[in-house]
């Protein structure tokens, strides 16, 4: 009984911390419709600022409260600066660009935080008044673990008063329910959006600072917190405060018991709950089904490659094929990665460009392909040829099953659900240690004897990956590709000429998953190993950046983007320790200045 009670309290305590962050995220989404990937970074900043402030203040309750509020206010101000400087420019842009821009903010803040505070975890000595223990039956619980349980409901209450009793709150609720109405009421949208973002940032900062006595300020907070907060917000219903509260409690308690009872699959459990809720109730527990709020996208005309482009492509392929005779082993490995990236990017483009299905978890298929190869070797001692065949089959199969659940969703929900799936796969890969080796990965994934020479393997990768990318391209110009694009351009019209959009998208997602799986399989043999990082959020973002760098609305885009990105990334890694900062700035420029990508720009100049 005590055990249940203690775990319940632990769960409620982490639920409260989760709610502080998630409430800010959900308010921001409700009003601005931007999914703020940098929300965890704001929480992280709150923790670091809190650390700096609290060290200087007297270690009594009033000093603590003052310091924490100061950290929240400072984080709110930083949030305000981010909103005014960056986000304000993309409120009318497609959701994916908004997500990417906030991801860039995450990268930038990560490096900036490291520059200011250093890489080491920072802890505060716990003040005496928080160190005392509370006895519950036979169990002793530290006060610093208990006090968040009071703060969660307190903040919910204050937010409730703010939303119900003030003009600001009324406007926020109105904007969450109907954006046009706010504009019609003659409210200054800019000020409302800025204020909401600052409030959300302050809540995140508050959550970060409050976590200090029980934990530390560290550089891992950003991603871990934001992914958990996403789950909470999506499960609760995007934009709903009570939903976020209920989901926080649900997830917090689930984690607390999961860690004790099923330590190996806690993460899988959490993300499975999210996937389940979304599959049954796509709008979340308390969410409303929003009539597509995003402005209708403008689709540009797609043309087959002109003769000039074809010749250029052929020339590039020949250069790529003979390159190993002229360059050293380092560049052969870079070229191998570039070839793999081309297929990885082309497979994402297939689903999100012509298929119209944005994905924030494309690394799932890549990782499943890589693990299929690695596990095939480990369990069945499969040779390389069989491993490379198994990779697309496994990824395609999982993609088909997944697609069957989600093809009816669209926009940001689809993106979130793909992210959830990728996180489930990632959690499985890192937690099922007996099967996958956990973070130690699977080693010794060596190519077959005939392909051990790096040059030979490069030609193999080039043939498989560029070949498959060209096949994907061919499919897009075949009847299937036309039909898929028709269903994206005008869903109702497509139905009215007899096209089954659900089936088209299901097949498209399967093909896309299988192709990404192949690239993952080849990657496994190229690296000789398989790690959970292959499925991490960063890998999915890599694919998105390649596609956007090249241009979503073009057919050559993913290929150009993959090559440019691989080259750029290697150059960045060589040139600077702060590659995240550089990459983040690059994304900002890309999103704000060249949203149509390299190939898109080239097409316009012609």
């Amino acid at each position, binding site marked *: 009984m005590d055990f249940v009670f203690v775990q319940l309290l632990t769960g409620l305590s982490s639920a409260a911390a989760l709610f502080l962050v998630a409430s800010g995220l959900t308010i921001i989404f409700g009003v601005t419709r931007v999914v703020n990937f940098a929300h965890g970074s704001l929480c992280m900043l709150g923790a670091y600022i809190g650390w700096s402030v609290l060290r200087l203040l007297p270690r009594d309750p009033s000093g603590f409260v003052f310091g924490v509020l100061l950290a929240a206010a400072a984080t709110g101000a930083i949030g305000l600066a981010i909103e005014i400087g960056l986000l304000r420019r993309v409120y009318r842009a497609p959701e994916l660009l908004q997500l990417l821009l906030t991801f860039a903010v995450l990268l930038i803040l990560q490096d900036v935080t490291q520059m200011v505070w250093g890489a080491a975890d920072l802890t505060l000595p716990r003040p005496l008044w928080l160190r005392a223990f509370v006895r519950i039956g036979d169990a002793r619980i530290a006060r610093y673990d208990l006090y968040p349980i009071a703060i969660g409901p307190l903040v919910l209450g204050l937010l409730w008063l703010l939303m119900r009793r003030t003009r600001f709150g009324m406007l926020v609720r109105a904007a969450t329910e109907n954006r046009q109405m706010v504009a019609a009421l003659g409210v200054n949208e800019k000020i409302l959006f800025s204020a909401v973002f600052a409030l959300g940032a302050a809540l995140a900062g508050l959550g970060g600072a409050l976590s200090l006595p029980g934990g530390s300020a560290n550089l891992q907070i950003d991603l871990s917190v934001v992914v958990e907060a996403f789950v909470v917000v999506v499960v609760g219903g995007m934009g709903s405060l009570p939903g976020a509260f209920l989901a926080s409690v649900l997830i917090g308690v689930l984690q607390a018991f999961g860690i004790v009872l099923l330590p190996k699959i806690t993460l899988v459990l959490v993300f499975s709950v999210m996937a389940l809720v979304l599959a049954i109730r796509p709008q979340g527990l308390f969410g409303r089904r929003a009539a597509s709020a995003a402005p209708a996208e*403008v*689709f*540009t*005309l*797609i043309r*087959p490659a002109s003769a000039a482009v074809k010749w250029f492509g052929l020339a590039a392929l020949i250069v790529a094929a003979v390159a190993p005779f002229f360059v050293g082993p380092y560049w052969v490995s870079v070229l191998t990665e570039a070839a793999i990236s081309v297929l990885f990017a082309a497979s994402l483009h297939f689903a999100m460009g*012509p298929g119209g299905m944005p994905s924030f978890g494309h690394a799932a298929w890549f990782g499943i392909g890589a693990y299929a190869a690695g596990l095939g070797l480990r369990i069945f001692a499969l040779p390389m040829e069989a491993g490379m065949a198994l990779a697309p089959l496994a990824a395609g199969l999982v993609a088909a099953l997944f697609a069957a659940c989600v093809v009816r969703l669209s926009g940001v929900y689809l993106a979130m659900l793909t992210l959830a799936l990728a996180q489930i796969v990632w959690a499985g890969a890192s937690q099922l240690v007996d099967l996958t080796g956990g973070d130690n990965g699977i080693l010794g994934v060596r190519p077959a004897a005939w392909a051990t020479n790096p040059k030979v393997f490069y030609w193999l990768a080039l043939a498989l990956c560029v070949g498959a990318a060209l096949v994907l391209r*061919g*499919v897009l*110009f*075949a*009847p*299937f*590709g*036309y*039909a898929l*694009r*028709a269903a*994206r*351009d*005008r869903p*109702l*019209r*497509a*139905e*009215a*000429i*007899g*096209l*089954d959009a659900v089936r*088209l998208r299901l*097949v498209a997602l399967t093909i896309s998953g299988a192709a990404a799986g192949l690239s993952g399989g080849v990657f496994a043999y190229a690296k000789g190993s398989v790690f959970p990082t292959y499925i991490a959020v960063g890998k999915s973002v890599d694919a998105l950046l390649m596609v956007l760098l090249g241009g979503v*609305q073009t057919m050559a885009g993913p290929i150009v983007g993959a090559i440019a990105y691989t080259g750029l990334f290697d150059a960045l890694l060589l040139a600077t320790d702060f590659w995240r900062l550089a990459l983040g700035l690059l994304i900002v420029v890309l999103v704000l200045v060249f949203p149509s990508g390299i190939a898109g720009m080239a097409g316009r100049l012609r």
Partner: protein
Amino acid sequence: MTLLAVEGLRKSFDGVHAVAGVSFRLQAGEMLALIGPNGAGKSTCFNLLNGQLRPDAGRVLLDGTDITGRQPRQIWRLGVGRSFQVASVFASMTVIENLQTALIAQAGQVFRFGRPADGYFRAEAAALLRLVGMAEQGGQAAGVLAYGDVKRLELALALANDPRLLLMDEPTAGMAPAERGALMALVRRIARERGTAVLFTEHDMEIVFSSADRILVMDRGRLIAEGDAASVRADPRVRAVYLGEP
């Protein structure tokens, strides 16, 4: 010959009876207009026929086959073409590719992954373009056409399955007055030549009176009058609805 028989169609939203018992028949080769003031239930009625909405009660028979509540794409397969109130064509394609896509769908050849679609049904697509007077515009991007041309492309798309029945929701909405008459004359010619039945809604009364063989008048979810232009024009209930006469 009765092509379309609609019997006792009903649909309500949250207790509001948008369509409250509508019955009518449509002959092959006939042009039938469905008119009424805003909110009369025309669009709902249309969406019940084309499969976008399921009726609460009533039946829709196409040439004797019950098509009530079927999916839009199944209804298309049975030979019903449709144009939208807000013209919708595939913007990422050229004009002729729009039609090739419709013809590929019609032939059941969607799940083909090899030979470029460019080579499919070129002649048939070109013939449809000639029919609607757009023979020269096949290579243009559908997303940047003038609005009148978009409407004509819509018509060509709706004709791609050689339909027995054409459902046209405000076919001339948004067009310049001069183009309206030409488009409806074209529809009328197609109906005569091919024996296609046409059901359309329209706000422009001149278009209605000049192109419809018969007119149905709806008000508050019910049919209140039916007949040719002269009798509808003279009907006191229609005058009451449209002109507010007692």
